[in-house]
């Protein structure tokens, strides 16, 4: 018999975990939705963001929330660099993304992921490190919720809703939206497709790296060169669940995954909870290929 209190607490923790997942996946969602390519090395950029937060903490005493801002700024540069070295050759002058370009990106970013994670072992060693930042807990009835995770949850919702407003309400946001629907339409609204695509990529990387920093609050000890191997697949599942390019889809997909994983653990072993969460992708792809959001 599972106590109701356990389920309730798992639900709350699942919601917080889901928001963390959401912000980690959101950058991938933006790039996938707009530029229509999938960055297999997504997890390695999360890792980079996490190490950024770690070093900022060690050398600058920054807490992960502050580091997320710095990481986000760095992510802009990383994103532009990535766009012009990996995507520009494939996207330049194209009217739509061909399967071939999709596969070239898939394979080249796969190589990048091998390269980065193994270079990270040399640069950072394979040791697990963590950031010693714990703002305490807040009592909520019979439950105690970690404040740090609550901050991250709020930030995650904030980042995702900001991106919705940005895409809907600003000129450049509209240009990005236009690009995501039809590359030639971008020119009709008077914007340069390359500028729009590279900006979207840069924003995606900015969010990814900031997400990596925020993730360190949730996993107090888990910063290591291979951490991307878990968070990249989770991000893929989230984006597919929510539907690529649907900004609120990150949140919905993340929450689904977080709640499924945490609540299921009250009934089945953790491993199986994760297995179920991963396999959720299959029925969604079969029956709702556009994602669970209409």
């Amino acid at each position, binding site marked *: 018999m599972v106590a109701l209190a356990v389920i309730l607490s798992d639900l709350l923790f699942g919601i917080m975990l889901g928001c963390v997942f959401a912000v980690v996946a959101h950058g991938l969602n933006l790039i996938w939705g707009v530029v229509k390519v*999938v960055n*297999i090395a997504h997890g390695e950029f999360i890792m980079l963001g996490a190490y950024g937060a770690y070093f900022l903490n060690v050398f600058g005493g920054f807490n992960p929330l502050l580091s997320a801002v710095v990481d986000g700024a760095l992510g802009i540069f990383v994103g532009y660099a990535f766009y012009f070295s*990996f995507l520009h*050759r494939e996207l330049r002058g194209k009217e739509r993304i061909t*399967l071939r370009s*999709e*596969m*070239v990106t*898939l*394979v*080249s970013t*796969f*190589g*990048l*992921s*091998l*390269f*980065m*994670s*193994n*270079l990270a*072992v*040399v640069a950072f060693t394979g040791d697990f490190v963590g950031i010693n930042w714990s703002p305490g807990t807040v009592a909520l009835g019979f439950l105690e919720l970690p404040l740090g995770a609550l901050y991250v949850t709020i930030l995650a919702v904030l980042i995702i809703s900001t991106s919705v407003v940005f895409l809907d309400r600003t000129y450049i946001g509209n240009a990005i939206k236009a690009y995501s629907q039809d590359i030639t339409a971008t020119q009709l609204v008077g914007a340069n497709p390359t500028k729009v695509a590279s900006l979207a990529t840069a924003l995606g990387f900015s969010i990814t790296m900031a997400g990596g920093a925020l993730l360190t609050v949730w996993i107090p000890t888990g910063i290591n060169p291979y951490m991307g*191997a878990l968070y990249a*697949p989770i991000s*893929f*599942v989230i984006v*597919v669940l929510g539907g690529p390019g649907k900004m609120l889809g990150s949140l919905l997909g993340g929450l689904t995954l977080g709640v499924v994983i945490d609540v299921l653990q009250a009934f089945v*072993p953790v*491993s*199986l909870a*994760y*297995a*179920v969460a*991963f*396999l959720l*992708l*299959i029925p969604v*792809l*079969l029956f709702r*290929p556009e994602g669970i959001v209409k």
Partner: protein
Amino acid sequence: MRIAGLGVTFFGLLALMLLLLILPFAFPFSTSVIVINLLFYTALAYSINFITGMTGYVSFGHVVFLGIGAYALGASADVYGLDPVLGVLLGAALGLVFALMIGLVTLRFRGVYFAISTVVIALAALNIVLELPQLGGSQGIILNLGFQPYSWYYTIWGIVLFEMLITYYINRGKLGLGIRAIKSDEDAARSVGVNVSALKLYLFGLSGLFAGAGGAVFAWTTSGVFPYETFSLNFSLQMLAMIIIGGVGTALGPILGAVVVYLPSYYFLTVAIGTQLIIIGFAVVVIALFIPEGIVGTLKRRSASLRELLE
């Protein structure tokens, strides 16, 4: 053009395989065991070549079949004392069955969606095995089948030979033409009568079969099956890197890729440098961006005479 007769490369590969046949007698075990590993990776490369190389469906989670084969041999040898050669056959059979089941669902997804669905299946498989006490759960299975270099060697040699012959068989005839059409444009292929779904499933089944057989040999030679090591996505990545570097879809590419990826990796071990995966990763990036056909494909495109030779 590829409907051509068997060329120099075919006979060259055949000659190489025949030479390898006598190697265990001509050299000490310490050489045979390196070649066993090399052939193991070659077998994996050919196996993923059937699906990813030939159709362009990137199977990132291909390790799942290796894992199934490894557990087939591990569990059958541990619990029933089954002969390891039968264990390899069982691994191949289970690899085939699971590939057909998984392929029936996942081969409906195109491009990135297929790639991602295979990854989540591999991750889920690991997490499920961790909770199966019959398969040793997280403790895995420790075997004592002894040091059997001859049996290891000729088993994996036979697997690779089979794969080469089947690759040639497919590439040469009607099948090969249909498969190239699928790789080029799946819908157009369907509209000229190519039974796309069946052909893809056939290839996925083949690749699962050989990955399963390879996995069984892996469990046999390493005297155990351990969930994290067996289902490590690194195997998928290595297989993929080998065919990308060697040249996708070709008959020569996988063995070439296995040689240029495995031998340096092994050499690096003895001089204790941990850089092999960095170099491999870099090579994959460069090849994917600049010479997507890999070594063999590029040589073929660059030179007509080489093209003839490399068929």
